[in-house]
Each structure stands twice: as C-alpha cells, then as structure tokens.
C-alpha cells in the first residue's frame, strides 16, 4: 500500500512538471511579448531593448526554460507585470483566501449533501425523495454564474443581508470579533454558491450508496438485533457509504477550484481565481504560469491526500 502511494506521489509530481513546462512553451507561442505590455509605445526602442535584456528575453529558449524552471522549484516565479511585485508575494496573499473559500464551501457542500441524502433515504421514492432529487439535479444543471448572480441580487441588493462583493469591508484593523464577523459575512454568499452548486452531486451519490448499503446483510442483522432505523443508517450504513465520498471529494477538487474561478470573479473575492482572471486579461505571463502550476499542484496533492485518507479510513485496505 505504501508503495502504491509513493508511486502515486511521484506520478503527481511528474504531472506538475509537465503542466509547468507546457505553460512555459505555450507562452512563447503567444503574439506580442512582455516588452509591449510593460512599456509605453513612445518609449525609445533602445530603452525597450534594455528591458527585454533585464527580463532575459533575448536569451535562447532552452536557457530561459532552465533558468525559469530552477526558479520555480525554489519558489521564485519572477515579477508580476500587473502588480509590479514578485509573483510569490501576490500569490501568498491570494492563496489563503482561496483556501478559506474552498474549505468553507466544501464543508457546506458536504453538510448540505449529506443532509439531503439522509433525508431522501428515510422514505425512498416518497415525496421528499423525489422533490430533493429534482432539486439536486437542478442545482447540478444550473451554471455557476447564474447561481452566484441570483444570490447576489436576492441577498445583497433586494434584501441587503450580506455584502455583494469583496472579502472585507473593514478599512483598518479591528478587534478580533469584528474582524471575524466581517469575514464571515463576506464569506457567506460565495461559500453558499459553492455549496449549492456542489451539494447535488454529493446528495445523489450518497442516496445511491446508502440505498445499496441498506440492502446489505449486516444491516438486516442490526435491525434484527433491535437497533432503530435511524441508528442503523447513521452508525452503520453512513460510514461505509461515505468512504467513497472521500474519493468523490478528491475528484471534485478540480471542479471546486475551477468553479471557484467564476465565483471569485463575480464576487471580486481576492483569491487565486480572481488573480488568475486578472492575469489572463492582462496577459501577465509570470502570474499565469505560476497560478496554473500552483493550482495543478494543489489538485494533484489533494487527490493524493484523498487517496491516503481513503486508505487510512478503509480498514480493508489497511490490512
């Protein structure tokens, strides 16, 4: 088992390297280079040439690649054109924000999905089961931008309960309680969007898995021993049904991160997604490369962690 996990880890690292290299060479395909971006057209060509030298654009491709790669490994992605700061700094500020949103959103998604699944399973094919099934399916089909926009309009403008954008409204550092409250309020709508769009899949999966589990003999045994229905479901069926949820979550990481892109843009949430979007619109090459690599790494590592968690959680595998 350890061997397999180690192999998976190595494979993951290979993937990250491949993506990094791809972004590097992709950039060289793009028309117009960074000197255009950085400078005013009225600058003398000689000054522009000097800038290219500074950014090393006049060196051969292979050398630039190696230099860039060694920088990346050490965590140095160069300077962002858009922010005039090292990419490292820009990302260091943005990453925690995305992690916050993703984690809270994921938790919401899980809780909502599990609750929905459990309710549906109480009386299969009953009214609630069918209604919530329809709800899950609809939530899955609705494009993220629609859900986000709907929530903003309803709960930020129509009934101003939550702020419509950004991560914080505080203009100066305040006491911990105010800061937390402010953060929570700004986090509410984006996180709910993440939760709503994802809970459908979780609920549908869990419903199916729980129904399958309930058909197993050990459940029958527990019921025969006199355990109540709810206890049987919660204590016996749920843990087993939930195991593959871990993998499901791992697999949904890419979607979570990508989906968060649209959400971050709509809510002006200062995370990796919004930074990436600004970078792409502004053709900020170092930043685009860095975010792509980092997000790939996050997803890949996340999947690997899901693998590890699954292995640890499933006693059958541990043996």
């Amino acid at each position, binding site marked *: 088992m350890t061997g397999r996990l180690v192999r998976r880890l190595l494979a993951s690292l290979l993937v990250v390297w491949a993506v990094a290299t791809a972004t590097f060479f992709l950039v060289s395909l793009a028309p117009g280079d960074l000197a255009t971006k950085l*400078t005013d*057209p009225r600058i003398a060509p000689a000054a522009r040439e000097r800038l290219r030298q500074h950014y090393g654009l006049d060196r051969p491709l292979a050398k630039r690649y190696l230099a860039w790669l060694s920088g990346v490994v050490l965590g140095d992605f160069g300077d962002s054109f858009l*922010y*005039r700061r090292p990419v490292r700094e820009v990302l260091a500020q943005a990453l925690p924000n995305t992690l916050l949103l993703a984690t809270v959103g994921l938790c919401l998604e899980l809780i909502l999905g599990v609750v929905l699944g459990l309710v549906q399973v109480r009386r299969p094919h009953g009214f609630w089961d069918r209604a919530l099934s329809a709800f899950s399916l609809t939530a899955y089909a609705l494009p993220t931008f629609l859900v986000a926009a709907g929530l903003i309009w309803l709960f930020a403008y129509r009934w101003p309960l939550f702020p419509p954008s*950004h991560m914080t409204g505080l*203009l*100066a550092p305040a006491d911990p309680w105010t800061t937390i409250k402010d953060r929570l309020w700004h986090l509410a709508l984006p996180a709910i969007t993440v939760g709503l769009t994802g809970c459908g899949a979780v609920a549908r999966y869990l419903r199916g898995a729980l129904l399958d589990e309930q058909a197993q003999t050990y459940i029958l045994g527990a019921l025969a021993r006199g355990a109540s229905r709810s206890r049987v479901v919660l204590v016996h069926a749920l843990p087993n049904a939930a195991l593959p949820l871990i993998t499901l979550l791992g697999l949904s990481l890419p979607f979570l991160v990508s989906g968060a892109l649209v959400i971050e843009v709509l809510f*002006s949430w200062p995370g990796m997604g919004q930074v990436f979007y600004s970078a792409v619109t502004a053709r900020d090459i170092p930043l685009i490369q860095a975010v792509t690599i980092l997000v790939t790494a996050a997803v890949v590592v996340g999947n690997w962690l899901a693998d590890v968690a699954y292995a640890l959680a499933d006693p059958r595998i541990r043996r």
Partner: protein
Amino acid sequence: MEVRDKKMLAAAFLLVLLVGCRRQGPSPAVQGAGPIHGGEVVVALAQDLSSFNEYTGFSESTETLILDLLFPSLLVEQPDYQLHPPSFAPNLAKAWEFSEDNRTLTLYLRDNARWSDGRPVTAEDVAFTFRVQKDRRLGWHGLEIKDFIEAVEVVSPTVVRFRYSRVYPYQLMDANDGHIVPAHVWGEVPLEEWPHTDFSKLLVTSGPFRVATHLPNQTLVLARDPNYWDQPKPYLDRVVFRILPDVSQQLAQLFAGQVDLVLMVPPREAASVKQDPKLELVEIPSRVWGYVGWNNRRPPLNDRRVRRALSLAINRKALVETVYWGYARLANGPIPSTMWAYNRNLPVLPYDPQQAQALLDAAGVRDMNGDGVREWQGKPFTIELLYPGVNPLRAQAAVLIQADLAKVGVAVRPTPMEFTAMMARQEAGNFDAVLSAWEEATKVDLTSLWVTPSPTTGSYNFIGYSNPEVDHLAAQAREEADLAKVKLFLDRAQELIVEDQPVTFLYEGIQLVGISRRIKGADINPSSVFFNLPEWYVVP
C-alpha cells in the same frame, strides 16, 4: 391621575417633543456653518493602480487622478483650455517669474510643504524629479515633454530655476508636468531598478491625503494628511477607493448607497442616475475622442479616396446617438471642439453612401461578381476591425459600423481583442483597422499622433499616416512662440488631416460622473474629477 400631574406630564411631553424636534432637523446655525469636518467618501474604481510611481506605471487617467492626491505638482492647471492654453494656479510653487528673455523660469516654493515622514519638500526634490523625467534608460513616456528644458537648478531650498533652450507657449506647462517625488527616499533606489521596484513599500507622499491602507485589487484607503500645507483642508477624513471591475456592480453599489462616486456611468444608465433623488449626474465634456484607425500603409486603405469613402459610408451621427445616447458629440477632426486650438472652419463630413460608392468605384474597389461585396485585386474586400473586447460600447460601435459598411459593399469583421494584444498588433502594423479612442492633452501637440514616425523615437502613429506638410506644420507649431501663429499652423494642419481622413473621426466623449448628493462642495470639471477634493465635505 390628578389634573396637576397630568399637566406636568403634558408639559414634560411637549418639552421632550420640542427638544427632540430640534435635535432631529438641521438647525439654521448648522446649515450656514460651512464645511463639516470628517467623514469619508467611497469611490468605485475599475482597476487598481499599476504603480505608485508614475514614472514606471502606465499613466492611465484614473491613476493620475489618484496620484494627484498623493504627490505634489508645482502648479495646478486650470480648466480653462477652451479659449487658450490653460492657465496655472500656485500649488507647491507659491509664485514664479520668467526672466527678461523668457529663457529662465524661477519658482518660489512654499516652505511649509512636508513629506509624510515629516521632511520638508524642497527644490532638491524638484531637481531630482527632473533627472528622473529626463532619464533615457528609465524611459518615462513623457520624456519628450521636457525636451526644451535644459536644466533645473537648486538656488536654495525653496527656490528652483528652470532653464529653457527656446521660448514657446508651453514653458510653464512643460515645467509642471509630472509630480514631484521624494528625493530622500526614492533617490536611494538606483534608476535601473525602478521598473521592478515595489514603490508601495517606499511610500512617502505629500499632499492632502496619504495612503492608509492598500489591499491590492481590493481597496485603497487614503487618509487625511495632517501635514498638508493648506490647513484646515482637506475636510474629509478618508477617501476610500473600492476596486470593482464590473460597471454594473459599481452602479448597483452606487444606488444602494455603498459607493458615493462612479467615475464613468455608461450612457444607458444616465437616466436612472438622474432619476434617483439621492444621486446627481455630472456631465463633463472630456477631451477623449473616438475613431476608426485605418492602416494607412495597407492597400487599398493607403488610398485617400478609399478612406474618405469609408468615412462617408458610416452614419457617424446615428452611431453617436445610438451608442452614446446623446452623451457625446460628433467628432470632425483631430482636436476636440472644446479646445482652444480647434479649427472652427473645418468641413463636416456628411453621411453620404452614394458618394462613398462612387469613390470606391473610382479607387478600383468594385463588386465584379455581383455578390454584394466589393473586391480588391480579385479578393473580397474585407476589413478586420479590432477593438478592445472588454468595452461594450466599442462592441456596439463595431457592429453598427459593420452594418453601415455592408450597405456599400464592404465586409467588416469585428474582432474583439485583449487590450495588450491589440496594442501589439497595432505597433507591429499588423492590422486593417482599429476602433479606439485618444485623450488629447491640454497641450496641443500633433507630433505624437500625426507626424511620420521615425525609427529612433517611439510614436503613437500606428496607422502610419505620413504627410510631409503636416510634419512641417507640427514642428513649427511646437517651436513657435507666438500663440496666434501657432493657431494658424494648427488650423492648417487640421484641414490637411481632415482632407486625408487617415482615420474616421467618430465621437467626442462626455464623461458622466455619478455622485451622491451627500457630497457637498465638489467642483467636478474637465481638468479633473478631484479638482478640489480637499474642499469636499459630506453631510450625514
């Protein structure tokens, strides 16, 4: 209850009412008291500053607005460019005088201007700034402005002297261009390192406000600088810039009262802003003018007749009406009609598709195979029209132009592009046509746009327009001392340019500013929206 108690109760009740009422309404004493100190104003901004250092940043117009508040300029340009080149009011320099031969300008700085770290602003800073501006390695885009200034000397901490190589109408303006930066802090950083230095870490400012908080791409908070020399201003405690790239979000927050000022209200929403009793719509005639830039180097667009035909075939008036909802004027020439240098006798190009067709035929662009699209050298005449995809007004204009030109047999392919990619193609000369706009500086200089580009200096003349007579006139206008003669040169140059139609002039913009009525004392004028920001105050 006894009658006596009731009366007491009634009296008490009345008393409370009276006292309460007086507290609620604005008492006459307060109303006449003038500006209220304190409070804040929230401004919606579409994008964050690219840099706190204008000598390495992009100099986008909203950036200049903000930098105006943080870094001092020697003088303040007045919004009176309609009749003559703008005049100036004292700022950092409280007085100035020219020498007899007008080749020397002496400026007397005030002695109570301070940087935010307490150090005084001195002539040394002015001299240092000049060195930065002239540095060819740094390559500030305004380098040419200082061409005729040979030297800046420090006579004393509060007296600085500019020496000119010639006498011309813009001496004061050229000396004033570019904010003064702190020599004692920024001078420590070698100029070669400026392009990749993060100046937000070296923020030492001097002005009505200083930077209190900067969350990149989120918020920029400016707080009142107690060191500001024009006390008791500014009245506001804080100016908060909230970065909202989406205009509809900006407006939604304006209507909801979360934002007090929107710098560019889309024309379509103007009516809603006017109707809202809490808001006011201010219309500022701007010096921005929009155009379709034809690639003058690319046949058949290098033929004057073809370009003129295209201009005649576009219903420019309808386009302006449709896209800008009446909040723009038809543009006729390279200099906006609100400026002193505008040639009032310029012929106005009508909407005449018939004539357009005749001209196209004469130029050899004809429809040979009867498919409704003209051919040029055997191939269908298609024009790829580039425009910045993020701008919905350009998108609309592009579609309308496509429709208009289709009526005369010219196929147009509107192509949205990302802004830098579009710039790259423009610079490389790799385009048919671009839909863009230009903001004319208050100093009227035709050199950057209309003079034949030379290989040694950069230029904004991407379309490749070249008319030797215009070159000559522009050079003369630049160096002439007599304003009347300058006007003559510029008038003639405008005539020639309009005859040549290197671009199709579309519209002259009107900037629509949406502002909350709780802001008082604001003089929003064509020079700057924040022209007198230190005098703004808010009523609760």
